[in-house]
Every structure is written in C-alpha cells, then in structure tokens.
C-alpha cells in the first residue's frame, strides 16, 4: 500500500514539474537590473529573430505537447508548413503570456518585440492598457523607457566607418491632426510640422578619395 502511495506522490511531483514553465536564454528578468536590460537590447539590435521565437516551445516540450493537444482540430491545411509555423507562433505567444503572468518583471522576447512593434505603429493607449493588463504586452511606460535605453546603446554599424566624414539625411513632413471640415467642437485641430532627420554612417570601403589633411589645410582640389 505504502509503495502505491509513494508511486502516486512521485507521479504527482512529476506532473507538477512538467507544468512548470522553464525560462530560456531569450527570457529576460528585469529585476536583475541594467545588465539584463542591456542583454535584451543587444538581442533586439541583432534583428535576427527566426531562431529566438520558438525557444519557449523547444525548452518546454511537455507543456507544448499539452497545448498542441488543446488546440488540435480536424482542419487539414493546403500548406502544412505554413500552418505549423503559424501554430508555433500562436503557442509561443501563449507560453510568453504565461511566463509574463508569473511575474511582471519577466520579459519574454516575443512580448518585447510585440510591444516595440505596437509602439512604433502608435497603438491606441486604451487598447494598450487593456493588452498590458492581460499580459499580452509590456506596459507602455516600460516600452518607452526601454526604447530610449536601447537607442543610447546602439551597437553602431557592422562595418568600419570612414573617419572624419559623416552623413545626414533630412526631409520635411506636415500633417493636419484632428482636422475636420465640419467643426462641432471647441478646437479646430492643428497642423503638425516637423523635419525628420537621421545620421548615416559611411563605410570605409566606399573609398571617397578625399584628402582630409588637404581640406583641413584649406587646399580644395
């Protein structure tokens, strides 16, 4: 009898372990401070996410199998590979939400990328607050701070830059905000004027054939 009880208890412990979500190298704990944030920033700047977006699935096979069983149906797709790829993304999203729900300081890469994407496209703040409350997104404030942090830690170009020569590009942009042809409110909208600009790094290999020393000496030839 005692033997059966022990076996059942082992089974229970085993099942409980199976249901624990294991973090991966692409799961980030923000309670560890700026070092962890910097690591996340470096991963984001790399820009290659094809391998990172199935890490939670790979490292948690039992949970994945359970979720696959839960979402299975009788649908037979024309493109099997595409269907499986989309399903992997859905399950990764589910696991990311579970991981984020454990502790708000934990940031899976999937949610970080979705938050940056939503910020980039100017998601409505009320929708953001709702999605953040159910842990589909990070908070708006955290995302904004993280983007500013990452911009300060831009790793720079992957090539050797041309010394003493830099480049800028700029163009103007104007748009009418809250403008209506029929005014039924107190305000008439406003015009947003701006000039967007950016710094371009020029690679050493373009070989501009400039004699910088001559330019500094005032000999323009």
């Amino acid at each position, binding site marked *: 009898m005692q033997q059966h009880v022990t076996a059942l208890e082992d089974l229970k412990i085993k099942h409980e372990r199976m249901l624990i979500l294991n973090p991966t190298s692409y799961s980030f704990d923000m309670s560890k401070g700026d070092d962890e944030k910097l690591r996340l920033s470096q991963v984001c700047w790399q820009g290659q996410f094809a391998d990172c977006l199935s890490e939670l699935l790979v490292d948690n096979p039992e949970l994945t199998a359970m979720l696959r069983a839960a979402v299975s149906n009788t649908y037979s797709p024309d493109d099997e590979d595409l269907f499986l790829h989309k399903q992997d993304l859905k399950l990764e999203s589910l696991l990311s939400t579970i991981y984020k729900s454990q502790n708000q300081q934990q940031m899976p890469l999937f949610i970080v990328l979705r938050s940056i994407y939503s910020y980039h496209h100017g998601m409505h703040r009320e929708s953001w607050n709702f999605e953040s409350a159910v842990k589909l997104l990070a908070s708006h404030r955290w995302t904004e701070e993280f983007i500013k942090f990452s*911009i300060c830690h831009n790793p720079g170009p992957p090539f050797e830059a041309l010394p003493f020569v830099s*480049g*800028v590009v*700029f163009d103007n942009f104007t748009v009418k905000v809250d403008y209506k042809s029929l005014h039924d409110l107190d305000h008439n909208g406003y015009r947003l004027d*701006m*000039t967007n600009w*950016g710094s371009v*790094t020029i690679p050493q290999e373009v070989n501009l054939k400039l004699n*910088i020393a001559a330019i500094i000496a005032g000999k323009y030839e």
Partner: protein
Amino acid sequence: MAVHAANGRFGMFKPMFDKYSIIELFHPDHPEITDNKVERFRGFFSNIPGMFKRNSVKPKYGATHIIWREPIWDRLQSSNEDVEAELTLMREHPAHSGSVLMLAGGDGLTEMRMEHALARDPRKWLFTMPMVLPVRGEMPHGTAHTLHGYWRLWLKWVKILARACDQTEYIQDDWGVSDLKQHEHCVFILTAGVTKFIDMVFKMKVHQHPRQWCNHCWMHVPQTEMLHTVLISCMILDFCICNNAMQ
C-alpha cells in the same frame, strides 16, 4: 543677288558645274539616305537591351546604417531660413560636430536651398567644420509621380506584357514612390523584351525600311497592340533619359 553670287565668276560652285545633277542626292527617298536611316534605326534598337544590365553585386558593408534622431519640430523646408536652421542643428549635434565633412542628403528643393546657402555664405558653411556637402537623393519624387501618370495611360498593355514575361508581381494599378524601384526593374525587363522582338524582325532582313516593317506589323499583330508596342518603347526611352538626367 544670291543667285548671282552662286553662279557668277566668283560663286561658290566651280564654273561649268551642273548643280542640278546633285539634287536627287538630297531627296528623302535616295537609297543612301534611307540606308543610313535604317542602319541608325536598327543599331538604336539592337543596342537597347544591353543598356539595362543590372549590377548584381551587393555592397560588402551590407545595408545602410542610419540612426534616426529626434525630429526638428515646427520646422519645414519651405524657406531658406528653415533649411539653414536645420543644417546648423545637425552640424552642432555631437554625432557630427567632430566631422570635417558632413554630407547632407535631401530632395531637390532641399538641395537647392542648401546650394543657395553655400553660395551666400561660404565662410560659414564651407570654411568652418564640418563642411556641408549637399547630396541629392537618387530619385526626386516629382519624377516618380510624372512617370506614374505617364505609365497609367498604357497600363493595360503593360499588364499584358508583364503577364507574358511572368513579372506580374511588380505591376500595381497605383504605386507609390517607395515601389518605384520594383517598377523600374519591371520596365527594364519589358523594354528588353520589346526591343528584342523588334530587333529580331529587323534581322530577318525581309523589310529594308522601317515603314515596310510597320506595314508588316499592322498586318500580323492587332493594330492597337502594335501601336502600344512602339509607344511603350518610346515611353521607356523617355523614362531612362529622364532618370539619367535627374541623376
């Protein structure tokens, strides 16, 4: 008096020269003139496909590296004052203040205002670091929109050609400036196809004169399509000339 000068003792022609004997050499249907015309026409078309070889070598340094900065609020580029204020801000930015030379890229209007600024005050923009060197963007927007309007006239025929070349993914009813490169690529492919066809007809040497060739085409190809074939060739040449001129 002119007749007298031409025919007289000190005229431009030799004495006893029968000037009427050379009149037929200037006739538009003279064999030498028509042969030269045909030769130029043939040579022109046969050289066109070779003009559109695209460079398939990618740059070793990869994609352009650009860092977007905080927008300059309440400034546009519709006045010289705005552009100069923007250039000053960019020169003073820590990323550029240490440079000797700052390449500044913008559209045609911006470039014009920069050039005026340089001409007005070279001491400020050229003799102090960083020097400003204006660079025009590769394709001005106006050119793209003009081409768009031009191309739409023949879009129905362009679609037929694109379908024949299996290049339909590049063709849209309405495209933006950002799609221009794809359409440019498609136009090159279509141009090569059309001109190769015309060149092939010429090489048959059945028709010695472009007019004969046109008559032959009228008989074998539906008239509207033939007309479009010729017109699209002209349009594409216009496009290339315009593009090269702008660059």
